[in-house]
C-alpha cells in the first residue's frame, strides 16, 4: 500500500468534516473521490499533504506514519504532488520559473538541468512555446496543465488532484483530462477529487463515494456509478444525472 488512511478525523469548530475515514491507495492505482460539496474530498487531500493537521487517526505514506508530529512535513511533501482547483500558479513568475522553482530551490538541482527537464515536460504537453509567458496570459486549461507539470517535476510518488477541472470552461476540460489519462499510462499513482463522473468512470481504477466524512461505498467505477449498493450513493448520482453531468 502506498497510502493508508485509518480512522482519519478532522473538525472545523463544530463541523465534523472527516469522521473516521478509511482509505487505501495501492501503487499505480488511480482513485476517484466523488461526493457532494462538503463531503470532505478536498479536506482529505489537504490532510494527506499535511497542509491541514488531522484531529485523530493515522495516515501512512510508503510505510511511514506521516501524522507523527516528529515528521518534517517538508520532507513528506516532496513525495506528494498537489494540484489545486484554481491552479495557484505564481503570477509574478514565468511558466518556466513556476516549474523550476522547487527543483532548484528545494532539490538544489542545477538550473540548466531543471530547465531542460521542465522544457521536456512542456514539450510533451504542447506548451513549450509558453515557457516564457506569465500565467495570466494563458487560458485556464493551459494554466492547469502547467500546474500539473509543476507538481510532476518533483517526481512525486503520489499525485493529488483537487477538482482540477472545476474552474475550467467545458471546451478546456478535455485537454486537462487527456493529460491525466496520459499520466495514468505512465503508472502515476493518483487520488483525484472530481465532479466529472464520466471521466471518473474512464480513468479511475476505483471510485470512492464520500458521505458525511466517511467512505460510504467504493469499488470499480462500473459498479459504484452503474449499480450502487447504498441508497445515499443512488441519491447523489440521481442528482448528478438530473443536472445533466453524467
Amino acid at each position, binding site marked *: 500500500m502506498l497510502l493508508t488512511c485509518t*480512522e482519519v*478525523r478532522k473538525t472545523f469548530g463544530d*463541523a*465534523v468534516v472527516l*469522521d*473516521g475515514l478509511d482509505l487505501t491507495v495501492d501503487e499505480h492505482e488511480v482513485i476517484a473521490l466523488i461526493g457532494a460539496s462538503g463531503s470532505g474530498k478536498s479536506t482529505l487531500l489537504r490532510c494527506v499533504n499535511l497542509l491541514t493537521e488531522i*484531529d*485523530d*487517526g*493515522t495516515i501512512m505514506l510508503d510505510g511511514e506514519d506521516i*501524522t*507523527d*508530529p*516528529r515528521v518534517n512535513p517538508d520532507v513528506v511533501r516532496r513525495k506528494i504532488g498537489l494540484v489545486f482547483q484554481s491552479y495557484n500558479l505564481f503570477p509574478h513568475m514565468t511558466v518556466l520559473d513556476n516549474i523550476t522553482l522547487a527543483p532548484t530551490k528545494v532539490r538544489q538541482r542545477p538550473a540548466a538541468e531543471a530547465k531542460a527537464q521542465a522544457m521536456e515536460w512542456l514539450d510533451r504537453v504542447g506548451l513549450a512555446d509558453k515557457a516564457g509567458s506569465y500565467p495570466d496570459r494563458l487560458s485556464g486549461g493551459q494554466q492547469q496543465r502547467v500546474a500539473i507539470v509543476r507538481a510532476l517535476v518533483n517526481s512525486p510518488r503520489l499525485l493529488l488532484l483537487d477538482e482540477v477541472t472545476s474552474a475550467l470552461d467545458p471546451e478546456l476540460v478535455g485537454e486537462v483530462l487527456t493529460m491525466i489519462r496520459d499520466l495514468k499510462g505512465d503508472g502515476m499513482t493518483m487520488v483525484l477529487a472530481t465532479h466529472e463522473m464520466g471521466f471518473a468512470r474512464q480513468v479511475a481504477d476505483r471510485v470512492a463515494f464520500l458521505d*458525511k*466524512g466517511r467512505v460510504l461505498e467504493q469499488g470499480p467505477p462500473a459498479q459504484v456509478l452503474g449499480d450502487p449498493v447504498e441508497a445515499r450513493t443512488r441519491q447523489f448520482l440521481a442528482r448528478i444525472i438530473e443536472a445533466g453531468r453524467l
Partner: protein
Amino acid sequence: MSSELHRPSDKQLARIAFRRRKAIRSVLLAALSTAVLGTLFAVLITGAPGWDRVKQSFFRGDIARDSLPAILDGLWLNIRLFVVCAACALALGLLVGVLRTLRGPVFFPVRALATVYTYSLRGLPLIITIYLFAYGIPGLRLQGTPSVTVLGGAAIVITYGAYIAEVLRSGIESVHPSQVAAARSLGLSYRRTMRFVVLPQAVRRAAPPLLNDVVSMQKDVGLISLAGPVDAIRAAQISQAGSYNFTPYIVAGVLFVLLALPLIGITDWVTLRAARRQNAGT
C-alpha cells in the same frame, strides 16, 4: 453529526502530549535565551568604563522630576497638534489619492496638479516646508495671517497628506479591475463604485502602511518647535540647557514611546485582523 462525543484515540492523545511537551520546551528555551541575552546586555552596558558618567548625565531621578511639568506642557501641544493634523492629513490624502486615479482627459489638470503635489511634497524636507510656511507666509504681511502654530501645522498636513495620498492610491490600484467591472455592471456610477466598492477594500488593504504614517506623524508634529512653539522636545532642550544634564531628553523620549504604544497596538491588531479575514478558507 454522528459522533457528538468523540473519544480521542491513544495515538491522538500521544500526539497531543508530544505537542504540549514541545510547546513547553519552546517556552523554556525562549525564556532561557532571553535571560542570557538580557544579562549579556546589562553586563556590557553597566560594565563599560564610562557607565557612571552616562548614568549621571542621562538618568538622574531628581532632574527628571523637575523637568517633567514643562515637558508635559509641551506634550499637550504635541497631542493637540497631532489629532488635528492627522485628521486633516487623512482627509487631504484621501482627496488627492482619489484625484490621482481619475481617468479621462477632462480631469487632466486636476490629475497633473495632484501628481505634482505628491511628487514635490514627498521630496521636500518637512523642516524646509515648516520654515517656508511659518516664516514665509507671515512675511507677505497679509491681513488675517494665522498664528505660527497653525501655519506650522499646515506644513505638516500638506507634507503628510502627500505620503498618505500615495499609500491610498496604491491601495485603490490594488483592488482588482474586476471589482470595478462588477460594480459598473450593476449600474453604479464611477463615484458610487469608488465610495461603496473600491475605497472600502482599498482602505482596509492600506491600513497598515497608513497607520505607519500616522505613528510617524505623531513624532514629527514636534518639528513645529523649529518655528517657535514649545513642544515636548523643545521643553526638554530648554531644561537641558539650564542643567547641562540630558535626563529631560530621556523623559521626553519615554513619554513619546508611551504615546505611540496604543497606536502601534492598533496597527498590529488591524494588520492581523485583515490577514486573518483574507486567509479564511483556502
